């Protein structure tokens, strides 16, 4: 198989054994990008010079006989809402069209310390608002499994890049399912860590209390490897957790005997695709066959989670996005005075979905409505959290579908925001509770990948990675590649 289709694990071995060079690997990925990017459109900015320079530095290390870290020389894609010093970071918004951050996000510093290679900045829904990457201010991304389908969102570019062989791994961000849902649509593994486990410093905020950076990879092992690189307390993020990080690869033992799995009945919603449901139940049977025990649990406030999310996230967003006013950086509209300049700037440079959420959030926080909307949503959030606490008193992990359907067609739901929002119904409660969850492929429906979500307790990343790994080892889903460019 081509280098660009391999796992981090395999490529690290090949680099360490000097079977390949990092430059050769990077060139192969860049060649793949040349071949398929025109049809996938996973990227907003490509950084081949940076990638090759980083790769050569790794080769120099190998040549000297230095040990290299697991991500050294391995090309990855970075979601375009993660700040990269000297490289444009647009959040897929016209308002930040020319914004070049003067600093690196903490995760980027950590990846640099591991000598990882960055091939480009991945497309996304503008400011991470959306579930299909159709809301990018530049262009939609296409699903490598079916170019007529969406890759999911908002980290659609990251997931599509990995699925298309345009990157070996990627970073995404997850506010309401934005890593897991596109990972599921694109047949990749997506992990949303516990809130605070990975520093948010340098992640352009959508909804601060929900956002979390995480990996999108081809396998569970690769997910653990990227987590090892980016996890940890950061003094620059006061919401980050002051606890050491384990070596996540040590959790991948295949042993899940006695693992207690909960199936929250509220997540198996009506309207769910029958094939998706079937795939999940088969996956659960598989986990049981491996020694896990399962029981049905109830999480009664799930039905309110979506509404609470669509109060809290836009409220925070309305405030986080207020800084894009044309005064000190980014797009500036014309105006005879400061207020009209603000208005033209924001009217012209924000897309519809962003405007919709800013208005929703501004309204929810307005005096006279705060108690009825925002405060009530916070109360619902506490109840949702309590649902998780109760469930986790009985079980070790929760298993659900990642999304109720497989990837839908481009344009299919873009005129109906509400239908689009429903795609995140299984992932949103996890962000409200701040717990970790992973999505991994568990089958196919109509030729499109189906994702299974495994949710863990706070800081329970090791457990969900172990369960996911045990399952993954029983199937070849992780080895399958999108048919893109092969036989077409």
């Amino acid at each position, binding site marked *: 198989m081509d280098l660009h289709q391999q796992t981090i694990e395999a490529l690290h071995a090949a680099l360490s054994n000097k079977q390949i060079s990092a430059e050769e690997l990077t060139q192969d990925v860049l060649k793949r990008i040349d071949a398929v990017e025109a049809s996938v459109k996973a990227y907003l900015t490509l950084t081949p010079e940076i990638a090759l320079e980083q790769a050569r530095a790794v080769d120099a290390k190998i040549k000297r006989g230095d040990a290299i870290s697991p991500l050294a020389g391995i090309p990855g894609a970075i979601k375009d809402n993660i700040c990269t010093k000297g490289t444009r970071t647009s959040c897929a918004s016209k308002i930040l069209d020319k914004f070049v951050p003067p600093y690196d996000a903490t995760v980027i510093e950590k990846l640099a310390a591991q000598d990882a290679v960055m091939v480009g900045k991945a497309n996304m829904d503008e400011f991470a608002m959306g579930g299909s990457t159709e809301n990018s201010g530049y262009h939609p991304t296409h699903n490598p499994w079916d170019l007529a389908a969406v890759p999911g969102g908002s980290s659609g570019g990251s997931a599509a890049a990995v699925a298309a062989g345009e990157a070996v791994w990627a970073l995404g961000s997850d506010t309401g399912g934005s890593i897991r849902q596109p990972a599921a649509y694109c047949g990749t593994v997506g992990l949303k860590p516990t809130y605070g486990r990975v520093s948010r*410093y340098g992640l352009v905020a959508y909804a601060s209390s929900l956002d979390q950076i995480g990996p999108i990879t081809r396998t569970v092992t690769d997910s653990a490897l990227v987590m090892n690189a980016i996890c940890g307390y950061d003094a620059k993020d006061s*919401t980050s957790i002051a606890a050491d990080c384990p070596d996540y690869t040590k959790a991948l033992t295949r042993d899940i005997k006695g693992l207690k799995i909960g199936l929250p009945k509220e997540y198996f919603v009506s309207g769910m695709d029958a094939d998706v449901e079937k795939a999940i139940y088969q996956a659960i049977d598989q986990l049981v066959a491996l020694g896990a025990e399962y029981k049905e649990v109830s999480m009664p406030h799930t039905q309110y989670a979506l509404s609470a999310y669509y109060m809290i996230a836009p409220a925070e967003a309305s405030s986080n996005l207020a800084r894009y006013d044309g005064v000190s950086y980014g797009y500036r509209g014309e105006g005879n005075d400061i207020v009209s300049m603000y208005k033209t700037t924001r009217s012209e440079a924000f897309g519809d979905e962003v405007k919709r959420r800013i208005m929703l959030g501004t309204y929810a926080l307005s005096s006279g409505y705060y108690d009825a909307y925002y405060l009530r949503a916070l109360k619902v959030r506490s109840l949702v959290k309590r649902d998780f606490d109760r469930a986790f008193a009985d079980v070790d992990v929760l298993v659900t579908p990642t999304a109720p359907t497989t990837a839908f067609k481009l344009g299919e739901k873009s005129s109906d925001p509400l239908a689009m929002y429903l795609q995140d119904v299984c992932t949103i409660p996890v962000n409200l509770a701040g717990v970790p969850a992973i999505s991994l492929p568990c089958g196919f429906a109509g030729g499109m990948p189906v994702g299974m979500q495994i949710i863990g307790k706070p800081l329970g990343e090791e457990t969900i990675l172990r369960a996911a790994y045990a399952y993954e080892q029983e199937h070849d889903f992780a080895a399958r590649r999108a048919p893109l460019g092969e036989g077409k």
Partner: protein
Amino acid sequence: MAYETVIGLEVHTELKTHSKIFCGCSTQFGSEQNTNVCPVCLGLPGVLPVVNEKVIEYAVRAGLALNCEILPFSKFDRKNYYYPDLPKNFQTSQQDLPIALKGHLDIEVNGVKKRIGITRIHMEEDAGKLVHAGNSITDSDYALVDYNRTGVPLLEIVSEPDLRSPEEAKAYLEKLKSILEYIDVSDCKMEEGSLRCDANISLRPVGASEFGTKAELKNVNSFRSVQRGLEYEELRQAELLDDGGKVIQETRSWDEARGITVSMRSKEQAHDYRFFPEPDLVPIMVAKEFVDSVRDSLPELPDARQKRLSEQCGLSEYDAGVITASRAMADYFDAVVAEGADAKTAANWLMGEVSKHLNNENVSVADCPVKPLALAHMLQLIDKGTISGKIAKTVFEEMWASGKDPEMIVKEKGLVQISDVSEIVAIVDAVIAANPQSVEDYKAGKQKAIGFLVGQIMKQTKGRANPEMVNKLLVERLG
């Protein structure tokens, strides 16, 4: 109609931490524009705030010094509004759970003491500064923004509407400034903007219990302007009410040059700040042990110090009040007394010569060229009779100018007082002999003549003769 004035003050004070509230940038005043900035205080996409713990400590200090209750659990909130010098278009502040609540301070106006309630103290970040290209906002083609001040830590101290006159408001501000200086949390320089005051003022008929409609007075940047602005508002509102008009709730600014207040915006244009909890900062937990340790570290505050000076040093309450109004002055006083000077003499000198020189040359006590030890030595020279009080003024001038030790000055200039009887007698006799006419005049009952003779003696001794002895001996000799 007779009205009662109701005033409440909101004071913003810049804390004198070395770094800003949410980043490590310097808070140095007067730095070149946009040099004390970083991605965090510029509010660039992706940045996060981290609280400077010194700010919390200073807020707790201020809270305790103003007799407040310190909340064990408080939090930051976002106050959302658009303004070009506010890089994030929200200000991180505190709303429903501020760090300190329910305190008070005592003031005295015309000998009447009064306790003024403090509603709350909260922490927040300062905004930047707009620099207009022209002379005023209206005739400027463009404006530039200086973000050096953005993120400088502020405390907002809100009083209860307990103040009943502009004088009381001024006394409150003076007392507040004095306390903040004592606890060393702020420079309190109004001219540098490190102490700013907004005032709410309303009038109500005497005896009424409900408040009248208030106007908010902004941009008052000296204690004098606060008082003048409030006096103007008192009159304006009273005339309006007398004419059957209504005070409208609005924000007015004090125009120092014209001596009037001008409407800035009415309530209808008021902001909806859309406060909500700051999601990028975890709540602030202040442990009881921490509060106790801060309380233990508080210095003696102005009221206690005034009491001590009047009780222990025998100063009048007034004198003790004047000296303790500024911590630097009180420290200077204590140092002079500690060096062995008499407390009352020291107080007189501080309020007299020393203050006169400081004011004339616009020097702060802390930078006084005459150090407490030197002043104490000089006062001891007076005490011992080495120099007279009058000569002491000359010595002090020289000390101020050259920084020399008083004994050295006395020696160099030969200013030692002549208290030797035989020496003085000789001079007295010589002067009597040389001025028979004056002696005759004196004997004829002209008391003025003795003044002339004393003058002649002092002239001959260059003022060094002990004046008491001269008088005594002269009267004896002419007897």
